[in-house]
């Protein structure tokens, strides 16, 4: 009954949209004319998708995007829990392509990762995906070949539940955030390999030094500069790729395009936020509205009311808002490095807009952010690099493949962190965190004490108990590692090309502990299986498919190895994945 209603209303939404477009009533910006179609809504259990090239103009310069069914984002797919879906994906590009169903539980040969799940889809080829949908919620799908997920191969995925949802709403919108560059992404990566700070135009200058001396005094400022210089890093390094080349999109629209979702006062509006970016974290808020978060990564959570949330690449959050008196509200998603924003509007009718906030002040990383103890102030920073060098030189023996089953697992922190031997002296490891903590209740740099109630992972509680219930049988500790200047990324200092698969036993329940030994944030995604985040005490907190790992963090989660086969496990920042922060997880009997 429920499903029937939902299906019919969806069709209505689709038809209305199509007609508005057909009659030219849909307000399309002039520069978008000739661009890709707006994403269609496709529902059912049988889908034909074609990946091809489409001319777009998102910045004023015409470019060619890779698209699914000619739209950017690709069509929103609507499945129903329990259905078996069939998706025929055709390749109309002149290079291999693929589609990965992000966060969906399915047989390994349906997962869409070339080299692990299948051979990819050759030019002119077809792959038929077919699997049973065993979950519900908000997800997304994207290419897993080359840089196609940057150039347009992504779309929203909605799975309607069999059972009524534990919340009500009258309207339902996908809000898909993404980043677009007019540059060829392969060129972007080449540039980062040559000069990793290429896109950072906010490094500290002589003027900043003078200002800091004025504010903190000569000694403290010099000590702080020395600490950073000795680390060969800059505290302004928040994002590898910035608004210098990126245009941030909301449902495929640049900020000027002002994607608009309509509401009537008093209605409850469900917004399904999906971060489909290649490289960009967003801080999302809707000035004037509280957002009640009801699901994270597709899974119900205990409702929590917030003003703002940070969405890591590949995460999804479902929120419910209740617009009241205002004519329009701005959906504001500023990039983590504050170099730009995606923007849209919730409005009573087309053509309205609300004030767009100025981006927040650009945060700077502190030594404490990087897990180098509580050195919040520049004056103390000078001790960090010395100790840091000491760490790097320590011989950690044969820690690398040890089973840390007995170790303190909760990431309780406050202790000196031990590092895998493979990191020691590695030319690809430029930093090791000293005292990482779980940081679950930390809104993250740039969001602390901003006067708004900001969502943290500690606020997220699955609306269900630990679905497995077994205590983890063992612990696998992995460190996120990298070298900023070389722009080389890895786990435990070993890039994918040199790494052996992580082997899990079918049916086992294990704990994975991640330690971030870099200064960047990393959204870590395990294919095929859930990642059940734990709190500092090792209790089940929330079920996710992508876990944000801020710098200086140590977080643990449980995995039930209930999906046989070869799975991708990687940082979802596309260029980090591409340069080696990727492992194969092999679940064997």
């Amino acid at each position, binding site marked *: 009954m429920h499903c029937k209603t939902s299906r019919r209303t969806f069709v209505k939404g689709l038809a209305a949209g199509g007609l508005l477009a057909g009659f030219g009533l849909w307000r399309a910006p002039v520069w978008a004319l000739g661009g890709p179609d707006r994403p269609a809504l496709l529902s059912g259990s049988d889908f034909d998708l074609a990946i091809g090239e489409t001319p777009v103009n998102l910045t004023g310069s015409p470019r060619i995007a890779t698209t699914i069914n000619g739209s950017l984002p690709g069509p929103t797919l609507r499945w129903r829990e329990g259905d078996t879906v069939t998706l025929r994906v055709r390749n109309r590009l002149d290079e291999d392509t693929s589609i990965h169903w992000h966060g969906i539980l399915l047989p390994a040969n349906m997962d869409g990762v070339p080299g692990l799940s299948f051979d990819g889809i050759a030019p002119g080829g077809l792959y038929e995906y077919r699997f049973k949908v065993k979950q519900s919620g908000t997800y997304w799908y994207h290419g897993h070949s080359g840089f196609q997920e940057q150039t347009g191969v992504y779309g929203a995925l909605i799975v309607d539940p069999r059972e009524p949802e534990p919340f009500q709403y009258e309207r339902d919108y996908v809000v898909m955030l993404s980043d677009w560059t007019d540059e060829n992404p392969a060129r972007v990566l080449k540039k980062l390999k040559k000069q990793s700070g290429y896109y950072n135009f906010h490094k500290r200058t002589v003027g900043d030094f003078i200002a800091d001396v004025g504010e903190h005094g000569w000694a403290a400022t010099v000590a702080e500069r020395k600490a950073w210089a000795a680390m060969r890093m800059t505290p302004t390094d928040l994002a590898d790729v910035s608004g210098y080349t990126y245009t941030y999109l909301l449902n495929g629209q640049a900020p000027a395009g002002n994607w608009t979702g309509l509401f009537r006062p008093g209605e409850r509006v469900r917004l399904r936020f999906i971060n489909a970016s290649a490289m960009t974290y967003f801080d999302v808020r809707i000035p004037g509205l509280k957002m009640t978060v009801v699901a994270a990564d597709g899974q119900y959570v205990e409702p929590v009311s917030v003003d703002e949330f940070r969405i890591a690449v590949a995460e999804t959050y479902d929120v419910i808002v209740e617009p009241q008196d205002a004519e329009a509200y701005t959906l504001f998603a500023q990039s983590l490095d504050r170099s730009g924003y995606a923007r849209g509007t919730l409005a009573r009718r087309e053509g309205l807009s609300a004030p767009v906030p100025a981006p927040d002040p650009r945060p700077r990383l502190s030594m404490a952010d990087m897990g180098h103890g509580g050195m919040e102030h520049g004056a103390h920073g000078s001790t960090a690099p010395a100790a840091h060098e000491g760490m790097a030189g320590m011989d950690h023996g044969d820690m690398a493949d040890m089973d840390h089953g007995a170790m303190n697992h909760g990431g309780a922190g406050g202790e000196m962190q031990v590092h895998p031997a493979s990191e020691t002296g590695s030319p690809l490891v430029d930093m090791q965190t000293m005292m990482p903590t779980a940081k679950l209740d930390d809104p993250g740099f740039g969001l602390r004490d901003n006067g708004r109630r900001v969502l943290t992972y500690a606020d997220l509680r699955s609306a269900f108990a630990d679905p497995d219930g077994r205590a983890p049988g063992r612990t696998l500790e992995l460190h996120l590692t990298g070298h900023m200047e070389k722009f080389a990324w890895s786990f435990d200092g070993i890039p*994918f090309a040199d790494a052996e698969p992580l082997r899990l036993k079918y049916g086992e329940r294990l704990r994975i502990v991640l330690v971030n030994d870099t200064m960047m944030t990393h959204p870590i995604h395990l294919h095929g299986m859930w990642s059940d985040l734990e709190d500092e005490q090792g209790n089940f907190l929330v079920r996710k498919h992508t876990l944000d790992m801020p710098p200086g963090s140590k977080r643990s989660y449980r995995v039930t190895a209930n999906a046989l086969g070869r799975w991708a496990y990687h940082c979802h920042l596309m260029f980090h994945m591409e340069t080696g922060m990727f492992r194969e997880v092999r679940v064997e009997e």
Partner: protein
Amino acid sequence: MAALRKFPTPTSRAAALAAALVAAPLSALGADEHAGHARHPAAPAEPMAHGAMDHGEMGHGDEASDDMEMQHGQGGHGGMRMDHGTHGGTGHAQRSSAVSRPPNVPALTDADRAAAFPVLSAHSPHGRSLNSFLLFDKLEYQDADDGSALVWDAKGWIGGNVDRLWVRSEGERTNGRTERAEFQALWGHAIGPWWDLVGGLRQDFKPGSPQTWGGFGIQGMPFYGLETEVTAYLGEGGQSSLRLEGDYSLLLTNRLILQPTTEINLYGRNDRERGVGSGLGDVEAGLRLRYEFTRQFAPYLGVTWNRLYGESGDLARAKGEDDEETRFVAGIRLWF
């Protein structure tokens, strides 16, 4: 359009008509939702199971769930390996039935195994890549005492993250005559995050007759923004040399950058033909102010100061040349 309207909104009659048109094929799809299973023998059981199990209320203590999983597993879809995530709170911990695996770990069938490990052609994503960098750190006109000079200083690399082939070249043409020119090709191997060992060959074309050297050294970043190179050379005829180079970028703004540079050459023995004497030979220091219109294109103005020492200075003075000179420079910094 990404609007997922849950309830009808005031749209035109035309929209309603279109909706009806689209609804027909979709409801057909809906009726056929299990068609995908038709070719599998176990399929008919599936709708039944749905009916009987009522997912929402499903108690995981019920052994039937395991039976069902097995049944559907034979269906070849990886089966009804339902993740019971959304039906939680049923206390798996207490459930210690005879089955050794919990309900979210279904028994495997051969079909599951085939789906899990498909046969692949050799294909490795995210493998090694070859990268390169070529920087013309100096490409400039110098206002010299005895005319105008064209000076270049370039370096680059090609390779991976640890092993790279480095090239270096520098030289000077004054009044259309090549005064000095050299090219180096060095294999570099990273010995830590910040330091590379390099070794290879250096060919001098000028001054004097061409001269070939073997070179060995270390290069790296002692702290953020400071690039250093120390290279020892052994040349033909028993000559030896040591070169120290360094440069730093001082950000006045994020585009206006002041770059101090220095280069020091020391020699093992006298070489009158080329105007060098043993000991400290020459020191060059520069200060260049560039504006990065783009990262890759930055014109600059600057000043260099050059001084010859010891025997080298004596040789220059003997030829009636200055042993010290300050020049204004203008050039372009480029990289590819």
